[in-house]
């Protein structure tokens, strides 16, 4: 039987909310349980209100929880913000200092009796985190005290927590281990006999799962694609992608370089790619604005380029630490004039890993930019996934092997199908040769006798500036002629059509809302409403004709995190099909399945 428990831990930034959440997820993982954890925080380092929302289940979870079964209120504001929404069987762990116990050096931020008014639940366990932490040996252990208490009410054997803490603090020495074990014990004991009524079967379990974020999956996907250069400029919520590869810099041949701005980051990636090293940069919408001119030069010079756009609400600075899907039409159209590009939008960390691999493969095969669409929700949520790291022994490169220098040894093979590279000589080589596929032979600079000449100006086949009218038409057509084959590389959307009904309604979304949409369909089914779903992962270029066949006779309810229903518009543009209705969420917070269910029921009537 499926058991789900959602734990919400709230407090100020700087109180270690995320640390408690991570500890919880790790212990759950060691018990073979599945978790979906989101961090909600403000754009500040201290103070304010932030929370970790951890959904724990004994079966696979694809969406975040929402209403907390267990609320851990580290500060007063958490209690105030959540008390009305609590269920009658919710359990509250309340950080309630006994004022007289407090010593002046303890920053008291606890609840009073008056603050409990209007609380949806009467199951309130009051503990004094700071006092217990102090007793354990230091205020710094307040997080561990809280974790101990949470595990107690979840019914987790203390041994399991102990084992993890020992492992976690091993590098810091026995003193720190003992300190944290004492703190955990204090918290555990403070729960007394209070237990939450839903239970898991807690025992150490070996699993083939990992807990991973979309950001980390993107970074690992790049490493699996032989990406070696990561120029970046810090920006929430995109920095995590780059941060995830930093730990590998001693083990794998990679260079991570903080650029002076996003313009430099994208141009550095292009320069390295031109020289033959796969490169990726990661940014959010505002940074992508700056990278847009780089997108154009990559397209014009037909230099492979992979960019991750981890979206957040805008325009301008918008909501830096929140989530949204507002950049779809932007990235598809970004830059002056028009050129082919790939846009991929994975739905979870496992798909992110594969999408990044695909982005590198396609970008190099077609010599066009590839853009991967993440968002704050996907990039930062920690999700239990089946271990999906499939790293190929070799990566396919589409480069002429000039074969007269040891330096090209890392470029395995010549897989260029559009032209016969053996016929390439320095005299006849044309970087932008017109071919049936539109793909021209790509050589690397200074790797042999061939001279590689690229320019952002319109150019002829040899890469010389050309203002000739006929040439302009020929070269534009050459670049655009890749589109037909590019469309065939795109997977059509995943369609779920409920059996036994002639229901034509489909919740339709893309990217990170995949999990919440699918779960919303399941909930609706349990309410007797049969509704299908359509999820786009490979977005652009779109094969309008093939897509039209998929979408014909279906009523689409677009589920998107933007205000102008961008995927809906794109579908109409590419297929002529109009969507039926839409559920648009623009508050910067993720989709919860329950929200989609409520809105869908309103639409269905």
């Amino acid at each position: 039987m499926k058991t789900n428990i959602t734990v919400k831990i709230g407090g100020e930034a700087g109180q270690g909310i995320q640390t408690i959440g991570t500890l919880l997820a790790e212990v759950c993982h060691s018990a073979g349980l599945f978790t979906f954890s989101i961090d909600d925080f403000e754009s500040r380092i201290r103070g304010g209100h932030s929370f970790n929302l951890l959904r724990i289940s004994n079966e696979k979870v694809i969406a975040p929880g929402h209403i907390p079964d267990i609320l851990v209120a580290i500060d007063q504001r958490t209690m105030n913000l959540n008390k009305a929404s609590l269920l009658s069987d919710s359990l509250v762990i309340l950080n309630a200092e006994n004022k007289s116990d407090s010593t002046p050096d303890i920053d008291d931020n606890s609840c009073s009796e008056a603050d409990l008014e209007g609380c949806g639940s009467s199951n309130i366990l009051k503990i004094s985190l700071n006092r217990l932490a102090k007793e354990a040996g230091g205020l710094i252990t307040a997080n561990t005290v809280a974790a101990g208490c949470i595990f107690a009410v979840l019914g987790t054997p203390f041994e399991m927590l102990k084992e993890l803490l020992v492992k976690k603090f091993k590098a810091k020495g026995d003193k720190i281990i003992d300190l944290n074990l004492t703190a955990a014990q204090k918290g555990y004991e403070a729960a007394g006999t209070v237990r939450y009524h839903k239970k898991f079967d807690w025992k150490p379990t070996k699993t083939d799962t990992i807990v991973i974020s979309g950001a980390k999956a993107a970074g690992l996907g790049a490493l699996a694609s032989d990406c070696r250069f990561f120029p970046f400029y810090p920006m929430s919520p995109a920095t995590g992608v780059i941060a995830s590869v930093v730990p590998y810099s001693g083990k794998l041949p990679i260079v991570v370089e903080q650029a002076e701005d996003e313009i430099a980051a994208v141009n550095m990636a292009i320069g390295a790619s031109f020289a033959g090293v796969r490169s990726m940069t990661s940014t959010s919408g505002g940074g992508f604005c700056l990278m847009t001119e780089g997108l154009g030069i990559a397209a014009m010079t037909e230099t492979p380029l992979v960019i991750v756009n981890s979206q957040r609400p805008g325009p301008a600075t918008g909501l830096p630490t929140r989530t949204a899907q507002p950049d779809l039409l932007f990235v598809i159209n970004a830059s002056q004039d028009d050129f082919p590009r790939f846009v991929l939008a994975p739905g979870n960390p496992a798909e992110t890993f594969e999408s990044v691999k695909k982005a590198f493969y396609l970008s190099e095969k077609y010599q066009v930019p590839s853009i991967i669409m993440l968002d704050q929700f996907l990039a930062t949520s920690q999700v239990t996934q089946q271990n999906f790291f499939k790293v190929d022994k070799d990566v396919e490169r589409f480069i002429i092997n000039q074969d007269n220098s040891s330096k090209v040894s890392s470029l395995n093979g010549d897989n260029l199908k559009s032209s016969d590279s053996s016929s390439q000589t320095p005299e006849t080589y044309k970087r932008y040769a017109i071919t049936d596929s539109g793909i021209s032979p790509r050589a690397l600079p200074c790797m042999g006798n061939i001279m590689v000449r690229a320019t952002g100006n319109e150019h002829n086949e040899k890469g010389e500036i050309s203002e000739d009218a006929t040439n302009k038409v020929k070269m534009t057509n050459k670049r655009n002629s890749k589109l037909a084959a590019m469309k065939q590389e795109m997977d059509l959307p995943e369609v779920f059509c409920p059996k036994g009904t002639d229901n034509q309604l489909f919740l339709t979304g893309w990217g990170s809302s995949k999990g919440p949409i699918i779960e919303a369909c399941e909930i609706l089914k349990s309410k007797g409403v049969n509704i299908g779903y359509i999820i786009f992962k490979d977005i652009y270029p779109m094969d309008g004709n093939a897509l039209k066949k998929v979408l014909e006779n279906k009523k689409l309810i677009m589920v998107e995190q933007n205000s102008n229903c961008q995927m809906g518009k794109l579908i109409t543009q590419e297929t002529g099909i109009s969507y039926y209705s839409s559920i648009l969420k623009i508050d910067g917070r993720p989709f919860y399945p329950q929200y989609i269910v409520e809105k869908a029921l309103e639409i269905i009537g």
Partner: protein
Amino acid sequence: MVEPKDYDNDFENKWCPGCGNFLIQKAMKQTFAELNIPPEKILFVSGIGQAGKTPHFMKGNMFHCLHGRALAVATGAKIANHDLNIVVNSGDGDCYGEGGNHFLAAIRRNIDITLLVHNNQVYGLTKGQASPTSALGMVTKLQKHGVTSSPFNPLATALGSGAEFVARGFSGEPEQLKELIKQAMNYRGFALVDILQPCVSFNKINTHQWYKDRVYDIQSIGHDSSDLAKAIVLSLEWGDKIPTGLFYKKESIPFHSRVGVLQDRTLISYPFDGEKTAAAF
């Protein structure tokens, strides 16, 4: 042996007759010949402007990129393969205006490339607007009442930002220019050669003769190029007399020697090992 003419190509040159760029390009070709670097072993990266077109009019590998971005592209290419001989051709507008941030960053990274800035104190390609190095008060078609900003001082900025190879040449002194480019090419680290040149079409003030009357070679008066303080003083001199030559040179640690993974071999030369990558996960 490589000859200067090995760099000749048959692409139609599009500079104005008498442009200083011809002399700069000639000095480049002579330098590469003297250093015995064949065109297939050199990568030119350039931005936008008349200077940015330089690689089009000669043989070699070329990435002619966007306005101001040559140093960023060159940085990426050099990190990918630090065996590359990279020469950046930029102009005063391209490098000191649009690309100012990349100029500062390239100095700080000490990326091992040669930067040639064709500095004619005016925008040539867009027909004569003021550039970052135009004199205060200089009248142009668009700055009708004179330029209202003070000129940017590239040498003082570079020296103040920690650049360790800073030189100034003049297109009208080709022998000196060639030697400066040669030293820049041989230097391990970021090498700036700011090159004064006339714009025969749009700069009627800073003409060939104007420069000719003012420039003097600091080496001929015994400047010690290891003396940073003296170099900074010289970099501030501008007016009746304009110093040229090697202002400052100091042995330095280039970017690729600061990054562990690049110390033994180039980034591109590492083999990909899927099993090793998987094991690292």
